């Protein structure tokens, strides 16, 4: 799939919903709970379940990034699945919050 800034996706096997903050160029194999994430408006395929080892979960409002630090996703609804890119789990991104300005 091609990731676009602001695009929203859902997991097929848990409650997870995400929004793309910073996309990767080209094709991205983005999964949650071991299965490809789908467009927010799409229905999950039948018969899928959370894969073993891909069930470490994610946290609401947190940012996740890949090993290169290029991709950035934000969890808008948390779930039990592990977010991963090309099979590699994404890691929690350390946030440097700006001071409140309005």
């Amino acid at each position, binding site marked *: 799939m091609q990731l676009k*800034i*602001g695009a*929203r996706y859902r997991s097929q096997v848990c409650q997870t919903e995400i*929004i793309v*903050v910073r996309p990767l160029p080209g094709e991205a194999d983005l999964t949650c709970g071991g299965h490809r994430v789908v467009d927010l*408006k799409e229905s999950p395929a039948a018969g899928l379940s959370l894969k073993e080892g891909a069930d470490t979960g994610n946290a*609401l*409002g*947190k940012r996740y990034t890949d090993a290169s630090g290029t991709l950035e996703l*934000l969890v*808008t*609804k948390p779930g039990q699945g592990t977010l991963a890119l090309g099979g590699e789990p994404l890691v929690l991104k350390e*946030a440097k*919050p*700006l*001071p*409140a*300005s*309005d």
Partner: protein
Amino acid sequence: MLLDMAASAYDSRAALGREADGMSYESLRRTVAGGAGVIRASAAGSVAFIGLNGPAFPSLLMASAAAGVPFSPLNYRLPADGLAELLARLDRPLVVVDEAFEHAVGTRDRVMTSGAWLSAAREAPEVPAADVADEDCAVLLFTSGTTGRPKGVVLRHENLVSYVIGTVEFASADLGEAVLVSVPPYHVAAIGSALTNLYAGRRMVYLPNFDPAAWLDIVAREGITGAMVVPTMLARVVDELGETPPEVPTLRSIAYGGARMPATVLERALRLFPAAGFVNAYGLTETSSTIAVLTPEDHREALGSDDPAVRARLTSAGRPVPGIDVEVRGDDGRPVADGDAGELWVRGPQVSGVYEGIGSVLDADGWFPTRDRARVDSAGYLFIEGRADDTIIRGGENVAPAEIEDVLIRHPALRDAAVVGVPDEEWGERIVAAVVPYEGTTADADEIRAFVRARLRGSRTPDDIVIRDSLPYSPTGKLLRREIVAELSSPAAVRTSERM
């Protein structure tokens, strides 16, 4: 989406109003879900709000989004014909109006008072949020129109979501944090504050009619931890305090923006609020609020530095927020050399650049012309020198009023100053400074001119100095230069001004 995230995480945490009887996140979510149904049932194509800041405002902002229609807070100070003109530009608006302004709206379809809105929204059955497209208009905000007919700025869902996600960490506010909002609902900072503070989990307290004593009182009484003000408000607060720092132990952050801050006001505020971190936020309606911030650390570093370049940053707008690119371009449309002044262009997902009835003014590469004159220093700090339209052209030389105003405000007898260009047969424009002396002091025009000449080039010394009791500002703190120019350009003004 943003409110759903907030409501699911905070639940019973106070979202709006006073700690004692405010509205919780869950109750706000409920009001918004019911309110979306109220809007849909009215068959409105948009929602307009004419009123003071208060709980009706954020509930309308979010209920409109949930109903999938644009929201337009209008300036409640406008006369009836001005409001009618703006309402005529909206698609079948549901008009929610404070009782105090009902008379200005007159008889029309789909009008309800703010009180009626809140009770209807609380009681109506909840409806699921509409499916909105990212590029749909979320907020249609009219510019203040200090230079002509108000323009309707289209802020799309994607602009506002980008702004929030780009600049705020979810749930980053500690329990007990509270922000005092003093800007009116029709200011972009009011839209920004409703979204960013709810997302961060910070309680919002509204001060409907700004008054410095009331502001200080609420900060102390409500345990306010952060406040956003426009420069004229901060000037009135420091005047109210004089030399005595207030008892406001909870106040940790003061954000200011919306107009240029006089250095003397900022320095007095820094002394009077030693425990607070100051944040300068620079942004435009068209950029979904803040695009650059000068952080508390930047303020402290500038204050404590002996390096003039670092110290000068106290008057800078700080550095761009994540996702925002800036470029300073010259009159030829090309980027200027490092450090030179020119027009500021910005680009990023939070930048709209789209006007109702006009369309997008972005260039082919997505850059938006701010019409602000600016320069960027070697460390990336942005200095805003005022509106490009305000630049005075005297004898072929470009003069930024801000440069002269910054010097005038340092004169010990002066509390305020505005520099404008007035048509002149010899020079094209001549430089006129309207100055306001402190009460009990007398200002001497010759001496003031000598003061400026000692610090700037001769061509930047005002040709005329006129003395005033006050300068005209809009309620949101913008200096109304047009009014000063109009007054000084009339034949009567020439006779009374001290021409030298």
